[in-house]
């Protein structure tokens, strides 16, 4: 046997093998049990020849393995190019639910306040006249005390008309500093219309600390409005009146629908009135045993549905309570 000729023949055969079947036949021919090389190895008697033939065997094995891997990969590639899926077909469907827009908005508000270091409060909805009106310094003649405006269960018990009784509960429970936001359902005796429902959700922030200012209130509201409606929003204030704050102001936010270019939502004024705010009235602080010369505070509140309406461009209140999946599945 001429090892050099054998190697040349074998490598030529490897190079010309065109499929994994062919390379397998080459392997059998040159390295199989009955191959010339195997027979020669079996008959080797001297060390030098043995070493040379084993080296040859290893070279041939390497060449065959290498070629086989190449061919196998080429065959796989050919096969895969034929295994095609229409990627535009829909995937297997998993049913997903959705959070209600009121919850989505509630979370944005909660997170904005958490970031400012506020606690989140979830408080009772059936209240007493004491907490809903008296402690909040509502005048005895304030229209909200009327049975026309408020749902009463009896002369003492009523459905809270705003989240503000939470202010009293929290201030009674602990001394300042207090930073909290209360969120939940409130009730007003309004007829049901396209834009009003007698049950809705409110959020109300309260801060009581040393030397809080009206400027701090403005800055805090700006932060929350931007969290709700985008970083470009502006906020302005107008003088107003609420029994439990003094001074009291209504904040306006620049219209997130038209970005102040003027639209139906903002009645072409560029501004949208949103809730109420003010510095906590000293009478309210005194009512809960907090000294108003030492501590000042601010509070502000706003409807959650109303915020959600502005976030999502919902012009009516109806979609929030009719719970139609065609609506809900958009969120």
């Amino acid at each position, binding site marked *: 046997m001429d090892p050099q000729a054998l190697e040349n023949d074998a490598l030529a055969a490897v190079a010309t093998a065109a499929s994994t079947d062919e390379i397998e036949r080459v392997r059998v021919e040159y390295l199989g049990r009955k191959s010339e090389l195997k027979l020669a190895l079996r008959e080797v008697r001297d060390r030098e020849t043995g070493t040379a033939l084993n080296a040859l065997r290893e070279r041939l094995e390497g060449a065959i393995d290498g070629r086989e891997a190449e061919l196998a990969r080429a065959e796989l590639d050919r096969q895969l190019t034929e295994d095609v899926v229409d990627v535009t077909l829909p995937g297997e469907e998993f*049913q997903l639910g959705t959070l209600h827009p009121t919850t989505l908005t509630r979370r944005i508000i909660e997170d904005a306040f958490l970031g400012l270091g506020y606690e989140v409060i979830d408080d009772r909805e059936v209240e007493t006249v004491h907490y809903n009106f008296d402690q909040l310094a509502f005048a005895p003649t304030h229209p909200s005390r009327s049975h026309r405006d408020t749902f009463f269960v009896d002369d003492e018990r009523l459905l809270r008309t705003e989240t503000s009784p939470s202010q009293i509960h929290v201030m009674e429970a602990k001394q300042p500093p207090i930073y909290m936001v209360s969120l939940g359902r409130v009730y007003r005796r309004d007829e049901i219309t396209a834009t009003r429902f007698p049950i809705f959700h409110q959020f109300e922030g309260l801060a009581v600390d040393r030397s809080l200012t009206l400027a701090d209130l403005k800055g805090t509201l700006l932060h929350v409005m931007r969290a709700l409606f985008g970083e470009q929003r502006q906020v302005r204030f107008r003088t107003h009146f609420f029994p439990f704050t003094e001074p009291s102001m209504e904040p306006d936010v620049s219209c997130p629908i038209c970005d102040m270019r003027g639209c139906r939502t903002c009645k072409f004024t560029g501004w949208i009135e949103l809730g109420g705010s003010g510095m906590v009235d000293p009478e309210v602080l005194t009512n809960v045993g907090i000294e108003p010369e030492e501590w000042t505070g601010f509070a502000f509140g706003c409807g959650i549905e109303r915020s959600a309406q502005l976030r999502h461009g919902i012009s009516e209140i109806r979609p929030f309570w009719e719970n139609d999946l065609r609506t809900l599945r958009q969120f």
Partner: protein
Amino acid sequence: MRVPLSWLRDYVAVGMPLDELASRLDVSTAVVAAVEHRGVPDLDGNLALFRIGKVLEAGKHPDADRLQLCVVDVGEAEPYQIVCGAWNFGVGATVAVALPGAELPGGLVLERRTLRGKESAGMILSERELQLGEDHLGIIVLDDGEAGTPLADVLPIHDVVLDLEITGNRPDLLSVYGVAREVAALFRLDLEPPPGMDPAREGDETVKVTVEDWEGCPRYVGRLFRDVRIGPSPAWLRARLNAAGMRPISNVVDVTNYVMLGLGNPLHAFDYETLADGEIVVRRARADERTLRTLDGVERALDPSDLMIADAKRAVAFAGIMGGEETEISDTTTHVLLEAANFEPTGLWRTSERLRLPTEGSNRWVKGVDPYLAEHAAALATELIVKLTGGHWVGHTDARAQLPERPVVRFRPERASAFIGLEVDSEEQHDILARLGNERRDGEYLVPSWRARDLWREVDLIEEIARFRLADVPFTLPVRREMMGRLSRFQRLRRQVEDALVALGCSEVYTPSLVESDSADDALRLQEPISVELAVMRTALLPSLVDAARQNADAGNERIALFEIARVYLPRRDELPEERVRVAGILEGGFLHTKGVVEALLRVLHVDANWMRSEHPLLHPGKAARIEAGVVGELHPTQLDGVWGAFELDLDTLFARVPERIVYEDVLTYPAVLQDIAVAVREEVEVGALVDTAREAAGPLLREAKVFDVYRGEQVGEGRKSVALHLSFQSSERTLTDEEAAEARGRIVEALVDRFDAALRA
């Protein structure tokens, strides 16, 4: 409050652009709900085409019975011939004329035209054509005036009305003069003194006024007028009332309304001859006084707490709210008793609430009217009554208690700056307060009587500074200290529940907490619901969710799966109800589908539940289960078409079972030994009992036991089933030997055979 600028200008020289006026008021004073332009368009010299005319000739149109042919002097070289359809005037009358080319309210431009053969150059005008009022039966007849005088000099033919939303703390702004005072302060303008000057009294008759209830009525000015001629008010007064939103009625009544709108003090006028003994008594209603017919024709019940105006015999008016029909001013009234009083808010509010009768007057009283205002109001009314009705003022009484002192308030400018967060120069602060009528006395201020209810503490004066400089206040954030913002455990877990249910395919809904009826008989019921559907505070969420599911099904929606997290209100006799937060769900599919969703939710929370057969009125009697936190089951088929599952769980109960933290266990180092067993048991044996027994028998080595097949068939036999369990034995300390696992398995089999007469099948 509707404020016509033409009226406002009587008291303050408003010269700034309208936008500036409106936006300044909007920011510092009250919401400007609307800026309304009324009357004749004010452009291109249009107003100059409206003039006072003198009728020189008037007579029937030769070819039209209903038309009058007039010749009118309008201040030009030649008089104008005008055809007119009205007949309430004649030669010599002073009238309002629009010349050809004039644009009327609504856009009509007058042209010379020929009516039945006669040229008509212009129009003789009625109130309605000028948008001054609704009266169009006749043309306006003016008292006097020189021909050719611009009509705008005597009538507000073009006007702007500001519609202000006055807040409850500012009753001083419920008058044109009050708004003028505010505008003067905001823009640093001079303010005219309040209108009204008492004319000379023409008699000294006694006006009998007895106030029995000084608390309810601290002041009562009564004035008597003789020989009054009731008739329509002049055009200027009618125009002002109309612009301010009140309908003119007759001169005396119009004067009372005019003074209320102008100065803010509601007045009332009685027909003097209808008052028994001509006497006024202010007192509470008597127990034997049942009803009073008010001037709107309604018979209204009296309550002993109502403050009444009475004569010598009977109640004749609800004080400050509405007068009685019998004593009201009529066309034949000749003697008038004028009331300029002051009433206390709270009692009057109660009466007005009970009667459900808010009026222009009561709206002012309940917010508090300055008791010092009564004399100005009486003066203005007296001046006008004498001038407009030809009546004689012959009697006067001012019954008054000790009127409240004006508050004196300490004020520190540096505290104001610190509170606002804006450095405002102290001189500027003093100037603002002075312009608003506060009188400075050392470190204190004497508050004006018209603000006495609103300004009585330092913070109230600080508000005055703040609102004048509101736009300049910067946006800052509090200096942070001791602020620890984080969700409570409940709030965090609640979000987890919401997110898990969404991931499990359920969509969140919000249903009303008020329902038509509730399964609890003692559920809280509203005293005055707005509808039968929203009348009772619910004690369960599920019925609302069934409704929501039904509406979705009716709408044709598919794969319905809904959940809600909300409060229920569990009654506790006279106390406030116990409010519990629950999660409820409703979804298409059978019992095991719903149970699967609830189990997944429990896995998210790491809560183990104990499932027990149960009953619930809304659930299928054979497919209802209870766990610690609530109910889970298949919906009763009478509730909805199709197969539905439902659950309602109490969140606090559920969350009490959530572990505080998850403790790590090494489950990889020592592998588990897995074994399956199948046992045949009687049909009625619950698989839950088999699993519980297996756990108990095997002890802590049994890490998991899970039912994976239930089989019924011939091999098992009638009335029996085969239950197959995956068992997983594991120790966290060592690898279990086959013997240990086999021994534990043996104990399980023994216990199952023992307790349930089970037959081991594999």
